[in-house]
């Protein structure tokens, strides 16, 4: 089984390196094929491991080699595949495989075809490290690794130039990439601090040892560690207030958005909380905070998705919102529920994004949904896929989202956190609304795209085939809930609903489905037919403006952080460094020079004055020596 671990882990690396060989060459179709095959190999290895663990119930652990050894710190490249990891691996490699194959279509005419596959596979490798590592620092490698790959991929079209926020809210791919990287770094510092705390209090970073000795720590310390690690998770999973990068990350190619910014990387934070469940279950107050924050993000992001016209941004906000759901579940202690939603969400959200990619291709990279409409005719399959994904996202029976989202709501109800339940319930309605607003705007109504002069076309068949597994999973994954629970609760704490909740389940289900359906119906009436932008409304309405401008948070950040930092930097350089520090140094040098210039005047060539100076010197020396004698 060890070999499968290595295959699953290193196949993406090999794939990435292989593609990197041709990174500067023009497109080579072989690169796309080889990398896709290698990722599929990794998928097969992951599935094998999943089955193996399902059979034996035991985790597979391997240690590759030593990494850092200093003082008492002894960190190895160790990998362990347990139930949670196996699920994560399977999800990651499955979505990756689909995205790889799909990218062959999506990037087919891109100048940097080979480079793209190199980055994409590198991302998969980093993600595999992240989920497979058996210690926190290994996790951190993957954590930062996915960050860099995300940076590379968001900024993939680096040669686009910066524009103002009015034209493109993300300014430019390279700008968005830097924003994502730096914001993640802020969170990574928190994570690093958490790692330091663990190390100095427990002397190890290995999960198994750390979690076995948690009871030796004081409660305050546990809270500290929990908060520090969660700050790390907030960055990667784009939780408020570190959320702005995710929407801007949509500047990357759409397959990237599907893989990284929907299905896998952004869920790393959730994975971390799930992984550290022994820690978080000891500190329910932090867990509660996580749940509240998650709930807030769920509705906060959903509200922004309501009005956005940008196809990808809507999906991005919806991702944000769904991450909030996951955190709410994890924070409430329902770890397997969070993991279940994570997996289900990965499938349908990736599908949604890939479908959006098809639409973008058809529309020649036009993203404004107001300029689409009626695409159903030309893009039957895409419509179908996106419809399935949206239904799943809205939580309609029997799609995957129904099972996972309902369970989260049940958990919130079960914990008697009715506030959270209510907000999440309401958000479910919003989710359904904006999902179908999108579907209706893109696929229904009059064909507004004629103004652009584009002729939409369906994606190539193999791309559509590649999307099929995701669609199937979005359809049927929910029915595996029981198996899933049985499988992962061997590792994660089981979360049992109380009897009271059990009785309420059917009511809850009906209520939730009702609000989702309401959302869909409202969307239908509002957006499925003739649609016109109400510019007057867009200009005047304050709520609309608040939402479309993302609550003015990006502008606020720019005004409170980026700009002052830049100005402060200028001051630090020009005023402090040059005017004070360096001028001080030069001032000393100048003072010496002035002293020299002044004392040079003594040297006036007149013997008499020389003699006077000499006598003065003589007097000083004698007085000093006399004084020393006298004082002694």
């Amino acid at each position, binding site marked *: 089984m060890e070999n499968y671990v290595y295959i699953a882990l290193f196949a993406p690396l090999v794939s990435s390196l292989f593609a990197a060989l041709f990174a500067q060459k023009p497109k080579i179709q072989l690169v796309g094929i080889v990398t896709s095959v290698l990722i599929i190999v990794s998928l097969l290895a992951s599935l094998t491991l999943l089955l193996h663990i399902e059979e034996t119930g035991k985790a597979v652990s391997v240690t590759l080699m030593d990494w850092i050894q200093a003082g008492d710190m002894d960190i190895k490249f160790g990998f362990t595949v347990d139930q949670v990891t196996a699920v994560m691996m399977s999800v990651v490699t499955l979505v990756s495989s689909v995205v790889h194959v799909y990218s062959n279509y999506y990037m087919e005419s891109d100048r940097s075809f080979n480079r793209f596959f190199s980055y994409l596979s590198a991302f998969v490798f980093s993600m595999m490290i992240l989920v497979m590592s058996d210690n926190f620092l290994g996790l951190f490698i993957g954590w930062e690794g996915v960050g860099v790959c995300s940076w590379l991929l968001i900024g993939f079209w680096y040669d686009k130039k910066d524009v103002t926020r009015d034209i493109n809210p993300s300014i430019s791919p390279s700008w968005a990439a830097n924003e994502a990287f730096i914001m993640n770094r802020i969170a990574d510092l928190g994570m690093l601090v958490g790692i330091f705390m663990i190390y100095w209090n427990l002397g190890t970073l290995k999960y198994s040892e750390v979690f076995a000795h948690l009871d030796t720590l004081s409660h305050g310390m546990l809270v500290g560690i929990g908060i520090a690690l969660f700050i790390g998770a907030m960055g990667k999973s784009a939780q408020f207030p570190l959320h702005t990068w995710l929407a801007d990350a949509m500047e990357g190619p759409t397959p990237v958005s599907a893989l990284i910014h929907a299905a896998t990387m952004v869920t790393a934070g959730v994975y971390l909380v799930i992984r550290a469940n022994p820690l978080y279950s000891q500190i329910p107050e932090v867990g509660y905070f996580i749940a509240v924050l998650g709930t807030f993000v769920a509705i906060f992001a959903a509200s922004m998705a309501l009005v956005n016209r940008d196809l990808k941004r809507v999906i991005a906000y919806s991702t944000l919102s769904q991450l909030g759901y996951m955190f709410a579940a994890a924070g409430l202690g329902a770890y397997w529920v969070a993991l279940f939603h994570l997996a289900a969400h990965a499938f349908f959200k990736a599908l949604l994004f890939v479908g959006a990619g098809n639409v973008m291709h058809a529309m020649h990279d036009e993203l404004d949904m107001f300029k689409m409409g009626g695409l159903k005719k030309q893009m039957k399959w895409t419509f179908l896929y996106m419809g399935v994904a949206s239904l799943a996202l809205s939580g309609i029976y029997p799609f995957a989202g129904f099972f996972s989202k309902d369970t989260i709501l049940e958990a919130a109800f079960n914990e008697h956190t009715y506030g959270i339940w209510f907000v999440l319930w309401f958000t479910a309605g919003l989710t359904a609304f904006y999902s179908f607003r999108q579907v209706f705007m893109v696929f229904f109504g009059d064909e507004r795209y004629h103004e652009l002069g584009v002729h939409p076309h369906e994606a190539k068949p193999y791309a559509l085939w590649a999307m099929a597994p995701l669609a199937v999973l979005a359809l049927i994954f929910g029915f595996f809930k029981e198996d899933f629970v049985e499988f992962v609760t061997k590792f994660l704490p089981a979360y049992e609903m109380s009897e009271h909740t059990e009785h309420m389940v059917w009511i809850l289900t009906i209520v939730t489905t009702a609000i989702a359906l309401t959302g869909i119906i409202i969307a239908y009436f509002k957006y499925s037919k003739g649609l016109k932008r109400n510019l007057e409304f867009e200009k005047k309405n304050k709520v609309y403006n608040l939402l479309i401008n993302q609550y003015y948070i990006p502008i606020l950040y720019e005004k409170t952080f980026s700009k002052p930092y830049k100005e402060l930097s200028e001051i630090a350089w020009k005023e402090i460094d040059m005017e004070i520090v360096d001028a001080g140094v030069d001032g000393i040098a100048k003072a010496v020079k002035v002293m020299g210039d002044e004392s040079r005047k003594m040297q006036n060539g007149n013997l008499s004055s020389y003699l*006077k100076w000499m*006598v*003065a010197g*003589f*007097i000083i020396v*004698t*007085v000093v020596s*006399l004084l020393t004698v006298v004082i002694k």
Partner: protein
Amino acid sequence: MEAIAFYTFSILITGLFLVTVFSRNILYAMSSLAAGMVLISGLFFIMRADFLGAVQLVVYSGAIMALYAFGMMFFDATRDVKEKNSSASSVFLLSGISAVILVAIFAAPAIGEHIKPLVTAAKGLDNTQAIGEILFTKYLIPFEVAAVMLLVAMVAGIVLASKKMDQSLSEIYQDADPENELKEQK
């Protein structure tokens, strides 16, 4: 008796030297300097440093002052020296302070108690004999060196004094043509 002689000499010497220092006329200055030198030899005699007194008389008052007198022939010595003493106060301040310091040092009781003889004079000899003894034993080499130095100084004095104006030595040798000299005289 000794005290009277000492004070008389002291006052006279100081007065004469003051005249030297402050006189405007160079001849007065030189004359009072010579007189002062003579009187210093008197002090040496009081101290019973007979040989030194004699040397003082012969060398200083005789040779050196005569040298000055001859040297002054080159200058316009009769004229009053015109000087700008712009900062007389600083001069008096500096010399005054150093005078006070020196006097204070010498008047301090510590001086004199800690001085030990290095070479004691042989008993039974008078001063001149003793000096002769030590000069030709212990101080022989310095004595010889001093002799050489005097010779060198003599040569230097002659060369410098006989040098022509505004010309370097090499030029002088180049120009050492009798015809040129004749022309110059004309």
